[in-house]
């Protein structure tokens, strides 16, 4: 990926303080992408580690996607915006891409057995899970922006404690 593309590469960032594990992102995803309510068909995955930690993770648009390298059938292609495209005809459901992904961002269809992952609702302009997240825990932003927000959060917490 070229440097200029890196700057504009947007991913779904989850604020783990705000994420409360409601899984509404998963439901929305299944309705929008699969036309059914089945959160196990969601492209974003909400995970809770008891008792406090919650996060929802979708494809991270990795710089060097392990899924692409893991695929023995050349079914995975990286699009210019960094998102992953899986060729259903080439995919035979071996699952190596799923195993290789550190973020659990790919899934295998229960029926048909091919892999699928988040396409950031490219046809709708923005990921619908982000739009519907009731606590605004999800944002679709560039890593640059995410980093700036983190710095802001740290500074604000210092100001809160009476710092200057």
């Amino acid at each position: 990926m070229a440097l200029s593309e890196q700057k504009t590469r947007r991913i779904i960032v989850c604020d783990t303080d705000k994420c409360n594990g409601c899984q509404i992102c998963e439901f929305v995803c299944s309705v929008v992408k699969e036309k059914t309510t089945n959160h196990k068909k969601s492209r974003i995955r909400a995970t809770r580690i008891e008792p406090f930690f919650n996060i929802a993770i979708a494809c991270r648009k990795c710089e060097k996607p392990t899924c692409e390298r893991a695929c023995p059938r050349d079914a995975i292609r990286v699009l210019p915006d960094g998102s992953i495209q899986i060729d259903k005809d080439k995919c035979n459901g071996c699952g190596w891409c799923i195993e290789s992904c550190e973020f659990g961002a790919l899934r295998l269809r229960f029926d048909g057995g091919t892999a699928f992952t988040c396409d950031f609702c490219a046809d709708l302009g923005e990921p619908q899970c982000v739009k519907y997240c009731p606590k605004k825990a999800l944002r679709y932003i560039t890593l640059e922006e995410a980093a700036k927000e983190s710095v802001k959060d740290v500074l604000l917490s210092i100001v809160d404690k009476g710092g200057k």
Partner: protein
Amino acid sequence: MKGYAGKYLKVNLSNHGLMTETIDEGMATGYIGGLGFGARTLLDTIPKGTDAPSPENVLAWWTGPVSGTILPTGSKFGVFALSPLTGAFGFGICSGGFANELKSAGWDGVVLTGKSDKPTYLFVNDGAPELRDASRYWGMTTWQTEDAIKEDLGDSAIRVAAMGPAGERLVRLANITTDRNRQVGRSGMGAVMGSKNLKAVAVRGTGDVEVGDLDGLMKFSTELNERCQGPKTEKYRVYGTPANILVHNRLACLPSYNFQKGSFERAEDVSGEQMSKTHVKKILACTNCPVGCDHVNEVKDGPYAGTVASVDYESLGQLGPLCGVGDLNAITKAVEVCDELGVDTISAGVIVAWAMECVQRGLLTKDDTDGIDLRFGNGDAMVEALKRMSLKEGKLGNLLSEGVKRASERVGKGSDKFAIHCKGMEWAAYSMRSLQTSTLGFCTSIRGADYLRSGSYQVDVAGKVDRLKLDASRGKIVYEGENQYAIIDSLIICKFTRGVYSSMDEIAKAYTLVTGLEMSGQELVKAGERIYNVAKCFNVRFGLTRKDDYPPPRAFEEPMTDDVAKGAQIDRRQYDEALDSYYGGRGWTKDGIPTKAKLLELGLKREADEVGA
């Protein structure tokens, strides 16, 4: 019909028989799901004279039509059985991912009968359910059981609902836990599991849940989700239900010292506001809930450092002010003990508070308490008593594990006068004498002293009626609330979203979008009335009458001493008048028995023949 799976699983634990049964449209529109299906199951399958802890008792798990869909707060289920605590209609309704999972697995519910000869658990693996050995999990806490079963089945997405050691020991207030912080809390459903040697139900569901109108449902759910960020649910989102502590304290309706008082001198210390500042580590949401009210506490210092538990108003009230305890560390620890060992926090708090009053009055000695210094305000003693009660350890543990009604009968010496329960189920955290419409609703409730059957405390707290008096206008408030709540409990949605629907017609709209079946608000209310009457018929079968619809003597005999409610007590004549207005409006006799005419009007012919007056 959509929304429903259209079938349920029937399990005979005695011979390990598994059968599939269907659900037809008449059952669906007549009884909706959840509580409606539960009421139908208990009345249809449990004969008169059945003992609660016996193989003949039936343990029914029901989802509602909206479970598994995107409708906000729809992932709820109920568990129903003859209650070991009350000997009457027992159940608890619970959130968490379990209901979605069961529906996705292709089942509306599971109905278990019989008793397994060894520890077992049911694994509903999509369309292939099986009973499995649970010896390895016997003795484990609820949380350990959930984790261990998921690990053994190799799938962390599986949902598990388990009883704890209290259920194994048939403690009458034993509950069922799922998703760590969610409970089928009241009326002893965990003890029914224990009596059947059923440690847990685990579910994996991977199928789609089809709905009547997906686009319409998505649009409506989106609107509801937005409303759920508005003022109607603000209380739940910010401080959670513990916000009630200071409100109730100001109105002298925060029960303290075993309902001797209606306010607490350390209310500030245990308020939702204080808890948020010093103890709440994270606010969580149940599966598919846009509100998020679950305030999870962490104890940072002292002997209970490291304790983590979800603390809501009822637990806080009964394990705090009711026991005279003003220490959030001890309260959080107490909730953790109850949750892990598997007992209902509300009942647990009332039982310990009763024991503390026995100690206060010299009716229980140090010998009776196995040396525990069970004085009001002693948080450590409370925690210790809860452990012993949950594990049935020693004299004290065995006594308390029976529930406050039986315990007070055993101790005698007038201790039944301050055993605060109705029908044997312990009173929730609403003062009896300074919230009198609430008290009427607690007593007409089919499962015992219960704030969740009619919500009749709301008119009192909001000042819509004179809460220190009763009259003939209150019956209608209670039964209309009961009919409406029966629908909420049958769909099943969360009561915290009741305010975001503008009318029953809107709730009916949700039903139609999900199921594709025509339904109006009025028809829903009628179904609610039918459901409530069916549950009532079950109680009549088990011998309950008017005498079982009264609060304990303290409500009538001891005037309150708190400033804002000084002298408040319930006037027996007024209570009778209010109860008459309730029965009359319900179409029941003065003895609290549904008339044949009312039952026939609701299409309940068999019931009219059996119990109708």
